[in-house]
């Protein structure tokens, strides 16, 4: 587009091209769903033709309801509608599904995938790796405010040193020591289970034999490497539900 945020004269043009959903955004309590979206439309200088948008997000039926009376998921959708009103060419969504229940999250994903199919550019920030994997064409992993890694998801996963991950229900002291003696470091997962990252086929075979010797047949699962492994190997730590590195 040839515009730069550093150039003051471009700022106005950029603002007309973009739609933004700030992090933890919450619209005006004393306005209805319709009025909040109208507020966004007025601020962007666009008309009232946003019925399709509200219908697409499942908000048309509740358009007359005060924002304060909506559920958390509905509130997040209102924010999304405010960002998308006026059909901006580029949409910035800062954690649009944080705090949503799984169903609302999947509905939002469906809507965003529809926008992607229409050719809309969406820049989405998330700490849900599954979300990034499902929605994105390209992913950038940021560490301390800088892009550490950028690329298409399959390419990044293919480049990852971790080929698979073994999820073990229980881990006793002996097994833990044996894994560590093979240079494998078990990691405790938030659900209480243990994860062991393996880098090559031979290593995977070795761990499987070890688990069978310890009588754990059927008590583990093997997961193919994914974006989370890429993230972990890039950042070197795990991310919490709140988005913090732990």
């Amino acid at each position, binding site marked *: 587009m040839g515009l730069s945020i550093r150039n003051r004269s471009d700022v106005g043009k950029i603002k007309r091209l973009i739609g933004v959903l700030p992090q933890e955004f919450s619209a005006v309590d004393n306005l209805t769903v319709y009025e909040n979206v109208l507020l966004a439309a007025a601020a962007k*200088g666009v008309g009232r033709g946003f019925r399709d948008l509200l219908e697409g997000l499942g908000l048309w039926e509740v358009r007359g309801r005060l924002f304060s009376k909506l559920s958390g998921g509905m509130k997040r959708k209102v924010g999304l509608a405010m960002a998308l009103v006026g059909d901006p060419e580029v949409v910035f969504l800062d954690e649009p599904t944080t705090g949503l229940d799984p169903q609302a999250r999947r509905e939002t994903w469906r809507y965003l995938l529809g926008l992607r199919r229409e050719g809309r550019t969406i820049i989405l920030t998330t700490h849900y790796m599954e979300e990034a994997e499902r929605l994105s064409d390209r992913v950038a992993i940021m560490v301390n405010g800088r892009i550490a890694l950028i690329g298409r998801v399959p390419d990044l996963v293919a480049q990852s040193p971790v080929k698979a991950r073994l999820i073990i229900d229980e881990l006793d002291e002996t097994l833990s020591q044996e894994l560590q003696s093979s240079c494998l470091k078990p990691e405790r997962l938030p659900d209480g289970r243990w994860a062991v990252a393996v880098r090559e086929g031979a290593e995977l075979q070795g761990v499987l034999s070890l688990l069978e010797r310890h009588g754990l047949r059927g008590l583990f699962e093997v997961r193919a490497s994914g974006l989370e492994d890429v993230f972990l190997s890039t950042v070197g730590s795990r991310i919490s539900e709140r988005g913090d590195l732990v």
Partner: protein
Amino acid sequence: MKAMLALTVLLFRNWLRSKVALFFGILFPIMLFLVFGSVFGSPQPPSYNIYVRNLDVDSDGHPYPLSEALVKILNSTVFEVKLLEAGETPRQSGFTPTRILTIPYGFTDNLLKNAIAVRLNVTADTIVRMVEVAGEGIPSADRERAMRGVEELKKVEQALNVSPVVVMLEGGLDDRLLQPIEVIIRNILAEFEHSLLNASSIIELDTRISNTRQLRAVDYYLPGYIAAFVMTNGLIGVSSVVSDFRRRGVVKFLATTSISKQAWILSLMVVQTVAAVVLTGVMIAVGWLVFSIRALPDPLSFLIILMGVAAFTSLGILLGSVLKEADAVSAASNLLAFPQMFISGAFWPIELMPTYMQQLAQYTPLYHFHNALRYALVLSSPEQAVASIMIVIGITVAATLLAILGTRWRDF
């Protein structure tokens, strides 16, 4: 412009649906205006409570005629008389001051004797003066007879054995109204005494009611309350809205759109202007209906209100934009608003306050705002408040600039 108009309408709806804003912005000032106006600004004459202990009664407890007449006269003036039995003490009720007027036993009898003695004295005195003035014009035999008559009159007066009639007024040390009440009672007693002697008044007081409207307390309250609540709506109301919108990310969201910072500030000012116009209209209507106030805002009054709205809304925007925590915004806005309400003389004339507070009042923006508004709206003589008007203009310009500078609009 269209975007700003739509934003203003939506912000106004938000304000209208906020019960707190409506209560503190419109209902609360009207309630205060009605209460304070009724208490201090009523056209009804004042009424003072006084207990009367009438000891001048016969053996059956019936009052003698003159003491009974005095009680009736007291009751027909500014006093609300409550009678006490001998030995009875009034029941203390909160902060109501207790004043007791005791009419002594023998009041009627003594007063009659005193009245006769005074008349005898006047008669004797008149004869003596007449004889002195006439001198040799009166035969000496007649002069001697006249002087003997005077001596007889004096003997009768002595035989009456009169003593002063003492009516006792008791009151508390902290009763600030006791002194004027004492003056009123003295006047009533003097008139009573005068009537008893059947003497005609030499000096008369001619009271005339002019057509010129005098300012009452309620006239003072009207511009004071409008100014005070325009200030609180701006400082406290707007700062909390801006702070809330910032916390929710609404300000950040608006900053990412093509609407300008100036349009955002102007929208908030327009909403507050509408609120101030509503408040002024309702206050004037209530004042007209309840207190017969005849204030009609002229263009200058409206302009002063507009400037006050702009000044205090801007300060509210500044606080809401600069301070990060909602608690800090609330504390700072209350800290700025409440002392001004009481120090600036918005609720009572600053002449009632100590000198140092009067000087302090003149450093508050609210003082100049309500002062300018009072001269324009109620006194129709804004030329007497030029300094205040200029100061309000200065504050408006400075506060608006500060609001524009203090609002971050590109922090996305």
